[in-house]
């Protein structure tokens, strides 16, 4: 095993650990906001570690850039989705205006 593949394996294992922690959080946390908190931390960081590991394994700069792009798009979509869900749970609307008192 080369240094690169060992590093990649460690990164992938760390990423998977984040996913497992996030899933446990989703199942165990009491309300929607703390569940979202667990999920986003886990998914974004976990996906980041996974992407790093897989990019390192692929050994091709072209694939690494593509994987980085996928991670970035997933990050943007996840943050917006999470924000919308959280706001909807908070005041029952997805409006940009201030929540009704």
């Amino acid at each position, binding site marked *: 095993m080369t240094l690169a593949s060992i590093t990649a394996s460690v990164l992938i294992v760390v990423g998977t650990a984040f996913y497992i922690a996030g899933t446990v959080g989703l199942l165990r946390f009491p309300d929607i906001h703390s569940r979202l908190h667990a999920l986003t931390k886990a998914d974004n960081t976990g996906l980041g570690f996974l992407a790093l590991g897989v990019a390192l394994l692929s050994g091709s700069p072209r694939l690494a850039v593509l994987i980085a792009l996928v991670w970035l798009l997933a990050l943007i979509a996840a943050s917006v989705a999470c924000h*919308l869900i959280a706001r909807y749970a908070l005041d029952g609307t997805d409006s940009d205006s201030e929540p009704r008192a």
Partner: protein
Amino acid sequence: MMLLDGVLALLLLLLAGRCVTAASLLQAIVAFIVLGLLLALSWVRLQAPDLALAEAAIGAGLLGVLLLGTWRHLPASGIHHEFPWPWHGMKQAVSALGGLALAVMLALALHETAPEPAAAGETALAQLDAAGVKQPVTAVLLNFRAYDTLLEMGVLLMALIGALIVRRPLQDGSRIAPATLLSPSLARLFLPPILLIGLYLVWAGAYSPGGAFQGGAVLAGAGVMLALTGLLRGASVDGLWLRGLLALGAIVFTTAGVLLVPVTGHFMAYPDGLVTPLMVLIEFSLAISIALSLLLLFTGTPGLARSRP
């Protein structure tokens, strides 16, 4: 890898069971979407990337969106009809009988068919040079089995026409634009990469996994995203151009087949030098028609309009 495949197969069975036993319709739909994603993963494991792409884009993506859209339009009550005695349990009985018959037939098919050395697959691979494309799946779909694919386009068109007739007419703008800037901005940011990926998939079909159906489904997905974020809406009026685009795939496919009869002597046979450009032309026109048909199935309207903010 045996472990991964085993877990995958077990999960597929569990999810399939969940789809038919889930307490609520929404849970069943979610289970079905996840089932589609895992099926796509299974096709990857079976080294069938073409099927994996199609399953992920159509089976898990668009079908899921269609089911969720239907679920939203169902009346809150009346989902669980209790049928009177003679019909009660009929649904389950018919489904069980159908499932059993299918299982028996599949078992028979697996038992009866021994792979033959000179089967169609081998012949097709041997003739790949004549097909004008390097990707065997595309060669079969657009050239060796072109007639079949043409009829599939007809089926898709018929399905759309049927859905539009059956569907209760929606009022214009019934899909209200969300009162937030976040999701439209996200859609605007994501639109260029999605269009790029869709067009690339259509183009790539000539030499690697991809093609009109996969690319068309991704393009339709871009349209669904625009409709969901309120940038595009279904309209009850349709223009001639839209109908033209819906029929474009079937028209181009048939025209190419008929016009070249004097040259080649056969319907849907292509002359040697022209195969590759013809394949690309047909593939792109098919993709446009597929994308539009799938998008209109989602909006449930005969036309589309840009929303004015």
